[in-house]
């Protein structure tokens, strides 16, 4: 059980959720950096993922203050990234040379020359991200037919649709790097490319739709908001849109759990069970440790140098824990970590050790749903082959007819 953590309130918002400092001039926040506290032992830039900036109406606002950010896409860092000026003539005379553009924190565009490794890294990362959206449709799609009310059914259909749309944006972004969607799907289907391991866990109850929105989408946003400033333009722009929509999803998930926790005993138990099962896999979503002794190796160092990655896995994970603990308290769910407690000295929550053996096991293919997810995806693709062939054949016939009539 969780050690009760006093949530300290400053100006109506819990500290630890909303702490921020200015960093590298990317923030438009109005906070005085010197006054921001508690100070972090984590990358101080992470504290920038804080200030409130969105007040638009959305699902979930009826149960939680819309002025309170529930996820990283509702912060000024997101706004700053979204406002990034992409115009080539704004590059301030750094020229079009790759290293100079990277050094000036400018965006690389599809026609720019780029190192082959940079291109390969991006193709791998964007494709894996696209595949995650497409495979990620399955765990929640599993509940569309059984959603307990028509309102929930409508929201869930729209959410799964959004995920399909995110997959399409991302495949398009990957295509700007010279690889087409069909090739990427083939790589997914035959196991050469991966998708996020989180989707290899099953959705056992309705509450899992809430937990996925709240925790999995919340973690995804935490990972993706920095990608809105990714050095590769098409990916960064896709992320700006994706994060905005994910932010709705995260609120919807929170609201599902909020409603369950205020429902019958069976509903409360369902919500708690879902939080128990999704908390640790959500923390593992940030990837293996990559700070301290684990800094070397892995992709982190090179990706950071290229401006593809902005923060270490461990730093984003810490930030996520700091954001979620107060939300769990609001919900009334107990996070399944006896070591979870506020550390005044660090200005962050301490938390227990992630089971990395399980992480690697699932990543290797031995998770509860790995085989099922790929089999489902392959079956849909194979069953649809004749339809896609027909569309191509028809297009070819039409092109021939047009040519004929023009001749």
């Amino acid at each position, binding site marked *: 059980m969780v050690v009760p953590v006093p949530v300290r309130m400053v100006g109506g918002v819990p500290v630890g959720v909303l702490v921020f400092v200015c960093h590298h001039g990317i923030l438009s926040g109005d906070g005085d950096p010197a006054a921001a506290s508690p100070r972090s032992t984590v990358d101080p830039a992470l504290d920038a993922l804080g200030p409130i900036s969105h007040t638009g109406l959305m699902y979930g606002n009826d149960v939680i203050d819309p002025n309170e950010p529930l996820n990283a896409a509702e912060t000024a860092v997101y706004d700053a990234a979204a406002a990034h000026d992409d115009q080539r003539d704004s590059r301030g005379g750094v020229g079009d040379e790759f290293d100079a553009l990277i050094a000036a924190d400018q965006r690389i565009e599809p026609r720019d020359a780029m190192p082959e490794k940079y291109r390969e890294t991006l193709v791998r990362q964007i494709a894996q991200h696209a595949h995650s959206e497409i495979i990620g449709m399955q765990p929640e799609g599993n509940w569309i037919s059984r959603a307990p009310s*028509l309102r929930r059914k409508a929201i869930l259909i729209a959410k799964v649709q959004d995920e399909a749309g995110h997959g399409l944006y991302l495949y398009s972004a990957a295509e700007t790097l010279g690889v087409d969607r069909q090739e990427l799907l083939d790589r997914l289907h035959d196991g050469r490319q991966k998708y996020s391991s989180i989707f290899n866990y099953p959705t056992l109850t309705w509450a899992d739709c809430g937990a996925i929105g709240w925790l999995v989408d919340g973690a995804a946003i935490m990972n993706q908001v920095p990608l809105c400033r990714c050095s590769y333009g098409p990916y960064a722009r896709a992320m700006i849109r994706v994060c905005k929509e994910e932010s709705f999803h995260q609120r919807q998930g929170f609201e599902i759990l909020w409603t369950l926790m205020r429902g019958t*005993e069976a509903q409360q138990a369902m919500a708690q069970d879902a939080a128990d099962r999704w908390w640790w896999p959500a923390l593992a979503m940030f990837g293996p440790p990559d700070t301290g002794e684990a800094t070397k190796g892995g992709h982190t160092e090179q990706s950071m140098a290229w401006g593809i990655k902005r923060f270490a896995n461990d730093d984003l994970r810490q930030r996520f824990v700091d954001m979620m603990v107060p939300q769990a308290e609001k919900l009334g769910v107990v996070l399944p970590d006896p070591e979870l407690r506020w550390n005044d000295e660090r200005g962050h929550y301490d938390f227990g050790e992630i089971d990395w053996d399980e992480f690697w096991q699932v990543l290797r293919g031995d998770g509860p749903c790995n085989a099922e997810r790929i089999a489902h995806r392959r079956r849909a693709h194979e069953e649809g082959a004749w*339809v896609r062939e027909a569309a191509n054949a028809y297009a070819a016939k039409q092109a021939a007819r047009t040519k004929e009539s023009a001749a």
Partner: protein
Amino acid sequence: MSDNATRQEALPGAAENHAGDHKPYAAYLLGLADDAMVYAQRLSEWMTNAPQIEEDMALGNIALDLLGQARALYPYVGSIDGTGRGEDDYAMQRDEREWRNVHLVEQERGDFADEMARLLWFSARQVELHTALAGSADDVLAGVAGKALKEVRYHLDHASLWVVRLGDGTDESHRRMQAALERVLPYLAELFDDDEASVLAAGLGVGVLPSSLHDAVVARAGRVVDEATLTLPNDSPWRSRGGRDGVHSRPMGYLLAEMQHIARSHPGATW
């Protein structure tokens, strides 16, 4: 929990609904709502199963439109049938014999050609139906139909584009699309049956006689089938009947079991 129970009793609009006027054509509206609801349920099964990602989205979108049409009608039905029921009472708490949809929409998901054949006919019927209902003597129904008309035109367009591509695509797709048109045929006559509720509603200027839509619907579908180089089959040894009287085909019970299971497992719960 007591708070929860209280909220459950006070379904949205229920109090006002009880005060609403009792009108004799509730059963007619319920048939319209149930057609949309059940087809939305079936179409949403395509999500993650469609031939391409764009189609996962498109069929999900059509399902959402139809679900929205049903949700617009159910509370209104509840306000005029004297029960004050809300949308989830109709969707989640009724047994098979109380559902008034036609058999066409409850049939299990077939292949993509089957779905496009069903969507073509259903949408062609919806376009004619909502065009007529936009002038209904019932203002609420006229409003719902006017909005739905824009949506179902897009649905018909979507189905038409695919029927043409499948019919005039490859040999395999032509064969599959033709077979699908033949499989859907037995379920079409029921769309045009003048059941008791329709006759009553049409007599009041609220509804429209289904039989009066027949020729226009066949003409719409026929044009698409021609362009697709397919043949409109017209001879079936049997036809479905009874949906409007709550006499359904085998898949309906299973559809309801799946759709209603969670809601019914937690009596009185709010979601």
